[in-house]
């Protein structure tokens, strides 16, 4: 993330000799010991296993003794990457990941911004607070719960939504059993889960806008929407950009919890994404080399996307992440 609250530009603390530093701060180093061990073991040690992507995984064999990946007895360390890209299921997963994430970006990303703008127009404080509390609620539900709510709410014959549709003379829609419908249901439940929670950040940014700007605009005769467009939106632009960069960085990523909970057998052609593909082929079918390769591809592309988005936003005169 960006700089910390009281970071001072250009401030360089005087360097201490190691022994003096340790004498003065030994307690702090002691405190840091556990977190540092944690990061080494649980965040950096797994990176060692990335090498599996370039080897032929053998059960019960030491990582370093494992043979390099071979095709026709010749060493071919990119074998698993080639295999992945010629795998039809991987193609489906890759396409779906990008499609779903793009739809999330187009529909899910603006939703909290719009909601924050709407909330900002409410004058009754009590009412505003109640609306906020209720809008945060879906964020606290797990995706398993959200899917079971969806199942009951949208069931073709007994679900509330279809009962209402039937009463209006519209035929029942199979929201979760047909791939195309499923995609929209998935996206809209994503919006449902996040629009309230996501708005918190924007509301805070709006609160930071100088109120004099609004007064001046009012004197100039600007109406509600003019103020929104010319003051509020520019005021929260940098927040929007930061979150957009993060979202672009995650375009190949994905929320395993959400996807896995919401998918079902009928819609896999549109619902299978990279993370669920990796889980099924890796942990379930024990194809560790192939799935590690896929995971590495995903991570590297994620970093590249993040860096490019950040670079681009700085080029366009925004602050970016760092």
């Amino acid at each position, binding site marked *: 993330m960006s700089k*910390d609250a*009281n970071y001072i530009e250009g401030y360089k*603390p005087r*360097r201490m000799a190691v022994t003096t*530093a340790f004498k003065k*701060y030994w307690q*702090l*180093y*002691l*405190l*840091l010991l556990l*977190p*540092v061990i*944690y*990061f080494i073991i*649980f965040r950096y040690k797994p*990176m060692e*296993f990335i090498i599996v992507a370039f080897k032929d995984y053998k059960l019960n064999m030491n990582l370093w003794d494992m043979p390099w990946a071979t095709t026709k007895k010749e060493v071919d360390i990119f074998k698993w990457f080639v295999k992945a890209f010629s795998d039809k299921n991987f193609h489906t997963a890759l396409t779906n990941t990008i499609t779903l994430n793009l739809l999330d970006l187009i529909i899910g990303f603006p939703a909290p911004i719009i*909601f924050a703008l*709407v909330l900002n127009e409410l004058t009754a404080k009590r*009412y505003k607070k*109640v*609306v906020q*509390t*209720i*809008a*945060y*609620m879906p964020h*606290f*539900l*797990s995706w398993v719960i959200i899917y*079971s*709510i969806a*199942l009951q*709410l949208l*069931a073709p*014959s007994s679900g*509330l939504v279809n*009962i209402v549709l039937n009463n209006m003379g519209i035929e029942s829609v199979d929201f979760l059993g047909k791939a195309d419908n499923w995609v929209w249901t998935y996206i809209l439940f994503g919006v*449902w889960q996040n629009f*309230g929670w996501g708005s*918190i*950040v924007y509301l*805070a*940014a709006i609160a930071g806008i100088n109120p004099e700007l609004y007064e001046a605009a009012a004197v100039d005769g600007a109406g*509600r929407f003019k103020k929104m467009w010319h003051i509020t939106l520019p005021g929260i632009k940098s*927040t929007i950009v930061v*979150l957009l960069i993060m979202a672009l*960085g995650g375009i190949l990523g994905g929320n*395993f919890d959400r996807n*896995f*909970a919401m998918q*079902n057998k009928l819609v896999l052609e549109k619902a299978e994404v990279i993370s669920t593909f990796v*889980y099924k082929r*890796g*942990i379930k079918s024990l194809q560790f080399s192939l799935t*590690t390769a896929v*995971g*590495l591809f995903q*991570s590297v592309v994620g970093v590249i996307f993040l860096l490019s988005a950040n670079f681009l936003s700085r080029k366009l005169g925004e602050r970016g992440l760092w």
Partner: protein
Amino acid sequence: MIKSNKTKAGDIVFVVICLFVTLICVIPMVNLLARSLSDTSYLIRHEVYLFPKGLNFDSYKTVLSDSKYIVAFFWTAGLTVVCTFLSLFMTTICAYPLIYQDLRGRGIINILITITMFFSAGTIPNYLLMKQLGFLNTPFALMIPSCLSVFNMIIMRSFFYGIPDSLRESAEIDGASHIRILLKIYIPLSKPVIATLALFYAVGRWNGYTDSLMYITVEKSELFTLQHLLYNIIQSINSVDTAAQEGFSKPGLSESLKSAIVMFSTVPILCIYPWLQKYFIHGVTLGAVKE
């Protein structure tokens, strides 16, 4: 005069939009509650909307008398409490030393921590590590790997930065040790952020099922978290349910039972979060907008 009328009309539009949004959030839950409390016969005839018909608590009784749910409920509750304390401890001891600007090695540690936010080894390497450490099918797999979130650590560190240095310095002059300063000054002043992070960690653990799904197998199904159990139930009822819709068996019981199970595993969090609202709003803000 005309202008103020116009403003009033505009205000009403926004009030109505918000009302609509609120309803969209609430209706699914109300529908769920109504289903869980309704009599089977009304459910079969699709007569239950927002109010229970033939009010009864049978499905809750079924849930509460099934030891499987109760065991998973208390196991997950206990796990959540332990994980929350462990995570808060780890987060605090990681964030606090890093606010000392002249601490040697601080820069490197900060960089190493930040990298992990953007690049992770991936699902399979993490799994292979769990395997190597012998964590598979043990409670450790559900506690240790997720015990420190970089994002939450940054929130806490930002909050610590907001506490005036002068407090710390005067305590140092009085001869207080750094751990003492943490315990006597920083932690008491950080209650809002601690409450926020406690909520984040607790919700994460309570709602989490990915690690349980990946690291715990059926042989140790007593270690499944509640959400994992719920996932299995929903996936298994699902097929029965489609059959039921076609009129093969009596759907009512499983339908209202399912609703009851969902309510049962959601209610704890829904009871807690509104009380912590003013804290977590602050926390989320600390983590994201910084000017």
